[in-house]
């Protein structure tokens, strides 16, 4: 299907007033017409907007994670596991939005050559999964501890006498450069580990999905996922901790002190200090923080995704929701037994419906492997995107404070408008000036540049990006692309349709993935971030760019969910299936089209949303 449903990447023009935006991003991320070969390659590939990870345009600094996974995913496919038909995923950027494309192995002979290599290499991982996974967990905990212990402090007027007496031989200026490098290195390394298992996990899952849909053409994807999904998933732990704290508050009778959202966390804690029971509760609250409050209120991909630790009012507010639920006589516990039973029932009964011994054998093989690998798919996010990232952003804020102190930037949050290599250069400028006792050049350059970049970014944000550019392929083999973005003919057609929509106010029907079954009608509430969840009223339908575990308590209040991004495995879909609540995910532009207060009908069986206007 080489008909041009999508514009050529080279046709997209800069938004007026943003000319020169390219310098905010790595030069190799730009589409180019300068070289004929590169231009042809770019035109013939299919580039889709990675709105799953980036519902908003990229800040120059935040692109670090994009570069990190660009490298990590690609290397594992192409050079380490030798996935036979799939190389890496290539990246570009247009007007601040990241576009990606899976790169296939086009030569059939080359595919054949890669097969035995893949069998040996991937085979080793599948066979030694548990052992390697234990090792992985140790590595992850190791780098998390490294980053937690990394000190990035202000530069002193005069070095401490200990520098002399210990014969240290280095200065705080040098340490700053070194630790900044180390911080970045830890981040990149963390993302190397992130992909060690992920694609093998997806490959196994995709194969199981393929078998199930061939054997049972009507099987909903959610049922397949339910058959392999873990039950004690680490991502539920933070929320479980809040439930425990809610119960404890009631047990200790200190729920009146917890009060309502009008009461700030500091006030609550200081009041609780006044009583024995209050102190008991504070101990439990403090214990829960590490590591469980390192959960991001967003996806963790963006610097502005604060963790619970960064804003303790967020978990406290969730505890209040749980207290109310318990008081109203409702159960807040996940129905573990029921979930386990349902899972077992699905596995046994689908298996029983197979008609040949061969099929039962294949089912057992593929289900077994998927079940083995799936916990990783579900759990890695806690370590990487939540725990590691939450610590990482704050370490970067330490760097920002130093830059602010030296007038390189006006506010700490300005640092995100600089790329990581620009920061490195600026730090050189800063420490050499500090060392020399002169004024750096940075204060003359960066504040002005940042002011301009802020203007550009604002325009990027107002712009609605095209969902895809280039030429759609006939076959996609890259497991990541299939599972995460759900790139299928259907989704591409849906995107093509969306692209043609000029006026979002005229859209009455939206389509996404059927994330969780059921049909519900209700009033929509658009929450762009977790900060908006206070606006949600009981029984409304949540419309959000995406959700994360820190949104968990919200699910107790609402009766349906619509998200812009995400496939069948996204957080919203998983949680809604558990709560038995309909969800349509990956609608592309749900938050752009649906407005708070609109009456919508959400069909989690078909993935359709109707808007009443």
């Amino acid at each position, binding site marked *: 299907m080489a008909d041009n449903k999508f514009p050529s990447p080279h046709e997209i023009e800069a938004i007026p007033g943003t000319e020169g935006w390219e310098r905010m991003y790595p030069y190799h991320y730009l589409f180019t017409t300068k070289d004929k070969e590169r231009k042809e390659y770019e035109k013939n590939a299919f580039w889709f907007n990675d709105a799953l990870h980036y519902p908003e345009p990229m800040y120059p600094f935040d692109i670090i994670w994009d570069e990190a996974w660009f490298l990590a995913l690609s290397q594992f496919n192409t050079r380490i596991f030798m996935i036979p038909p799939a190389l890496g995923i290539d990246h570009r950027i247009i007007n601040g939005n990241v576009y990606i494309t899976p790169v296939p192995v086009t030569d059939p002979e080359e595919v054949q050559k890669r097969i035995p290599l893949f069998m040996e290499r991937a085979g080793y991982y599948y066979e030694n999964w548990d052992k390697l996974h234990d090792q992985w967990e140790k590595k992850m905990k190791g780098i998390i501890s490294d980053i937690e212990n990394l000190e990035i402090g202000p530069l002193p007027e005069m070095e401490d006498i200990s520098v002399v007496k210990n014969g240290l031989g280095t200065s705080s200026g040098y340490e700053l450069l070194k630790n900044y490098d180390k911080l970045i290195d830890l981040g990149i390394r963390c993302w190397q580990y992130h992909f060690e298992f992920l694609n093998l996990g997806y490959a196994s899952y995709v194969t199981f999905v393929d078998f199930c849909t*061939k054997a049972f053409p009507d099987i909903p994807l959610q049922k397949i996922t339910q058959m392999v999904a873990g039950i004690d998933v680490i991502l539920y732990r933070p929320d479980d901790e809040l439930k425990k704290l809610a119960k404890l508050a009631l047990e200790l009778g200190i729920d009146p002190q917890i009060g309502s959202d009008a009461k700030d966390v500091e006030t609550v804690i200081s009041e609780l200090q006044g009583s024995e029971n209050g102190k008991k509760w504070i101990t439990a609250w403090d214990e829960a923080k590490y590591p469980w409050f390192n959960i991001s209120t967003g996806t963790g991909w963006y610097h502005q995704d604060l963790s619970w630790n960064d804003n303790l009012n967020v978990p406290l507010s969730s505890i209040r929701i749980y207290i109310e639920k318990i008081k109203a006589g409702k159960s807040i516990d996940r129905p573990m037994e029921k979930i386990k039973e349902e899972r077992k029932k699905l596995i046994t009964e689908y298996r029983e419906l197979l008609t040949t011994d061969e099929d039962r054998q294949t089912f057992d093989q593929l289900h077994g492997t998927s079940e083995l690998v799936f916990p990783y798919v579900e759990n890695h996010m806690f370590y990487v995107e939540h725990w590691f990232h939450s610590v990482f952003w704050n370490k970067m804020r330490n760097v920002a404070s130093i830059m602010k102190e030296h007038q390189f930037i006006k506010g700490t949050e300005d640092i995100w408008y600089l790329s990581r290599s620009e920061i490195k250069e600026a730090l050189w400028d800063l420490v050499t000036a500090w060392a020399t006792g002169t004024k750096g050049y940075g204060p003359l350059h960066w504040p002005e540049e940042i002011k301009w970049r802020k203007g550009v970014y604002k325009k990027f944000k107002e712009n609605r990006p095209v969902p895809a550019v280039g030429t759609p392929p006939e076959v*996609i083999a890259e497991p990541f692309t299939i599972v995460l973005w759900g790139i299928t003919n259907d989704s591409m057609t849906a995107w093509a349709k969306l692209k043609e929509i000029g006026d979002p106010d005229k859209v009455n029907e939206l389509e996404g993935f059927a994330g969780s079954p059921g049909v519900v009608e209700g009033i929509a509430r658009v929450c762009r971030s977790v900060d908006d969840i206070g606006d949600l009223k009981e029984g409304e339908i949540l419309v959000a760019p995406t959700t994360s575990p820190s949104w968990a308590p919200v699910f107790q209040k609402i009766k349906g969910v619509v998200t812009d991004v995400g496939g069948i495995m996204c957080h919203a879909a998983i949680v809604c299936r558990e709560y038995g609540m309909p969800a349509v995910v990956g609608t592309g532009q749900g938050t752009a089209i649906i407005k708070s207060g609109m009456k919508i009908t959400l069909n989690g*069986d078909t993935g359709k949303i109707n808007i009443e206007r």
Partner: protein
Amino acid sequence: MEKRYDYVLWFEECDLKSIPLVGGKNASLGELLKANIPVPPGFAITTRTYERFLEQGNIKKEMFRILKSVKTDDVESGEKASKTIRTLIESTPISDDLQDYICEFYRRLSKKCNVPAVPAAVRSSATAEDLPGASFAGQQDTFLWIRGVDGILNHVKKCWSSLFTARAIYYRAKMGFPHDQVEISVGVQKMANAWTAGVMFTLNPATGDRSTIAIDANFGFGESVVSGECTPDNFIINKITDEIIKKSISHKTILYTRDPESHCVIKQSVPSERTDIQCVVDKDAIALAQIGKRIEKHYGKPMDIEWAIDKDTPGKAKIMILQSRPETVWSDKKIEPVMKARSSALEHICAGLVTGKKVN
């Protein structure tokens, strides 16, 4: 006087063991009820009633005298005998005590259905039906939309007499099957007064997926769905989780119903306010699918089922199964594995990767 159990039995009281008393058809309705499959309610008038009727009417001797005169090579003699015997049976009054049993049960059936003088199907149920090589199934008559005690009694006699059609007489004579050993029971069953009806497959007829149940439904009797005269509402239900996976609500134009005057089945337009609404609510569609699952389990194979949702019967029992037979299209296909067997999951994964996923 003997117990009523010798003369009339609710279908619930019948099972395969009671074939000699209630015949094959009635017994199988009892079996379905035992498997929790709802069928329209009704009762069986036993073979004992038939015998007692012959005794009380004192007509047995006369009948067998006539039958003896029938020659196997003479079709005409058979037909003549048939006519005489049938007239004899139909003109002989049923005794008061037997009438009491039948009428009382009919009254109770009407009460059960919340309909005065409930329209019923009166069907013969022969004991020889299930004998190998001597299938009399379908040789006895069925009478539909019969109302009132007189109608019931008359048609019960018609069923009894249907044991003596020329064909049945000729057949028994030819097979050397003694006439006095064939007995007959009669079933009186509520006519399904369908609000909606249709068919159900315990697999998806479009894809062959055995994890789903497909239901086609329209207002009125099932004829409009069976004949394909109407695009029905369609439900695809997951057999394992009892969830509706897919639902298409069609524009329904015609329906079949009963003319209240003539009791004939007539075709009508669907009232305009109902053409586009879902004719079976989700809850009922799911309940129907659950029944479908039980029927499939009972027979051990995918089934093709005719069903109705009754207008009269109150409560849960309103869903009724009218007929079920084995599905043939997908079930008769050669069974082949979904995927070529391989020695390990890894082999499958590798093969899957190499094939990739077709985008269109």
